[in-house]
C-alpha cells in the first residue's frame, strides 16, 4: 500500500532549481535510502514533506491526502534532523526532551518503553547536553517514537557521529523497521549502511536519477560508482566543516 506519493515536485529558489519534477512513491513498511551529493535537494525534499516549505509546485500526499489540505498527517510522522540545534546548557533531562514531543501524555511507562527501544533506558535522568552526539541522536529517535508514528524521517542522522555509535544507531533502525513495522525514509552518505539496511533506494540530484529496489541499485555498477564518489565527497566536506 502506498503511504507517500510525490508527483511532479518542483522547488525553485531565486535563480536555482532545487528540485525538478520529482515523482516517486513509498510503500508501507519500506526502508527507503535517499542518496545524493551535497546540494542534491535532500533537505529541501524533507522540508516539503514535513510542511516546513510550502512554496512548491506539484503534490505530496501522505496516507492518500494532499498535505496542503491538512497538517494532521504530521501526527503520524517522527522526524530526526541531521544535527538538532539546541542550547548546550538547556535545562532538560532525556525524559524532559521526550515529553516535549508527547502529544497525549498518559502513562509514563511509554517514555521508558521508547528509551528501551533505543537502548537508552539507563540515561533517562541525564541532562541532554551532557550526552555524546550519538547518544543525543538516539534520544531524538526516542522522541520521534513517543507518539507511535507510522513513518520515521531521518535526515543524515549519523553525520559526525563515531563509527561505534553509528552501528548501534543502524541496529536500532533495523529493529524499528522489521519488528515495529515502521516505514523509514532515510537520507545518508554511508553507502555501506545503505547497502545493509534499506530495501529501496532513491538517487537524487535535483531530479530523480533512480528509484527502485536496493538490489537493482547495487547491481548497477555505474550508478553505484557515481553516487559512492559523490557520497565520499560529501563525507569529506562534512568532516572539514565540522
Amino acid at each position, binding site marked *: 500500500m502506498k503511504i507517500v506519493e510525490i508527483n511532479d515536485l518542483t522547488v525553485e529558489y531565486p535563480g536555482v532549481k532545487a528540485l525538478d519534477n520529482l515523482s516517486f512513491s513509498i510503500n508501507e513498511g519500506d526502508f527507503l535510502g535517499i542518496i545524493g551529493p551535497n546540494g542534491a535537494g535532500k533537505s529541501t525534499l524533507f522540508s516539503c514533506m514535513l510542511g516546513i516549505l510550502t512554496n512548491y509546485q506539484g503534490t505530496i500526499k501522505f496516507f492518500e491526502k494532499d498535505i496542503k489540505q491538512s497538517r494532521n498527517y*504530521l501526527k503520524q510522522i517522527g522526524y530526526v534532523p541531521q544535527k538538532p540545534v539546541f542550547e548546550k546548557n538547556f535545562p*532538560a533531562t532525556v525524559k524532559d526532551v521526550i515529553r516535549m514531543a508527547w502529544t497525549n501524555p498518559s502513562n509514563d511507562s511509554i517514555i521508558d518503553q521508547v528509551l528501551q527501544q533505543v537502548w537508552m533506558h539507563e540515561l533517562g535522568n541525564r541532562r541532554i547536553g551532557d550526552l555524546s552526539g550519538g547518544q543525543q541522536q538516539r534520544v531524538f529517535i526516542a522522541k520521534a517514537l513517543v507518539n507511535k508514528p507510522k513513518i520515521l524521517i531521518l535526515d543524515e542522522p549519523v553525520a559526525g557521529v563515531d563509527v561505534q555509535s553509528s552501528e548501534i544507531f543502524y541496529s536500532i533502525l533495523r529493529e524499528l523497521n522489521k519488528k515495529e513495522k515502521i516505514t523509514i525514509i532515510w537520507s545518508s552518505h554511508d553507502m555501506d549502511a545503505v547497502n545493509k539496511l534499506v530495501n529501496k533506494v532513491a538517487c537524487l540530484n535535483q531530479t530523480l536519477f533512480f528509484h527502485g529496489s536496493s538490489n537493482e541499485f547495487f547491481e548497477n555498477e555505474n550508478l553505484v560508482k557515481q553516487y559512492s564518489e559523490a557520497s565520499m565527497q560529501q563525507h569529506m566536506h562534512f568532516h572539514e566543516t565540522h
Partner: protein
Amino acid sequence: MTLEILSYGFMQRAIISGIAIAILCSVVGLFLVLRRYSLFGDAIAHSSFGGIALGLMVGIYPLWTAYAVSLGSALVITRIRNRFKISGDASVAILLSAGIAIGLVLISVSGGFTIDIFSFLFGSILLVSTNDTILILGLTGVILVIILLLYRQLVYSTFNEEQAKVSGIPVEKLNYLIIFLAGITVVTSIQLVGILLISALFVVPNVTAIMYGRGFKQTALLSIGFAVFSVVAGILASYVFDITPSGTIVLVSIAIFAITLSMKSLNIIK
C-alpha cells in the same frame, strides 16, 4: 524585629507584591534566557520609560501608558526583526535607545524631571498601594495560567523551533505570545526594582538555577526559589539598614549567583 516589620501594611503589600513579581519574572525570564533574549526585558523596560513620560505629560496613570507603549514597541520590533532579518542584539539596542530618547524628549517638552520619574527608574516597592497589589496578583495569576496551559508547546519551541514546527506547534504565534507576556511582566515589575534593574530579575535567578544542571521543572522551581528569597531578603534588609530596596534585592540575587559560581568551580555542584 522581623515580626514587627511585617505588621506594617506597606510592608505586607511590598512583600506580597514582591513575591508575585519574583515568581512571574523568573518563570517568564527562563523562556527569555533560553531563547537568547536575555536583554529583551531590559529593552522593553527602557521603552516603557517613553510610555511613563507620556502618561505623566498627558495626565494618565503612567503605568497604563507604559503597558501600551512597551507592548506596542515590543511587537513592532519583533515584527521588523523577523521581516528584515535584523539580529537580536541590534533590535534590542534600537528598542532600548528609542524608548529612552522618546522619554527624554517628552520630559523636556513637559518641563523636566519630577519625583515620579525617579520612582519608576529606581523602583518604589514600599509605596505600592492595595490596588497595585491586587493588579500585580491578578496579572501574575493570569500569566502563570497561560504558561501552564501552553507549557509543553512553550518548552518545545524554546528547545528547538524547527522540530516544534514539524510537530505542528504554532511557533511564530508562541514567539509573539512570549514577547507579549514579557512586556506585561516587565511593566508590572517596574514598581519593584525600577526600569534600570528589571532585567536582573529576569536573568540572574535563571542563570543561577541553570548552573545546577537539573531538568526543566526543577530549574524553574530553583529559579523561583532564588528570586523569592532575593526579593523578601532584599526588602527586609533594606528596611533594617535603611537602604534602597531595589538595589538590595538585585545584590542579594547576585550574591546567590556568586555563591553558586563558587560551588560550581569547587565541583560541589556538577
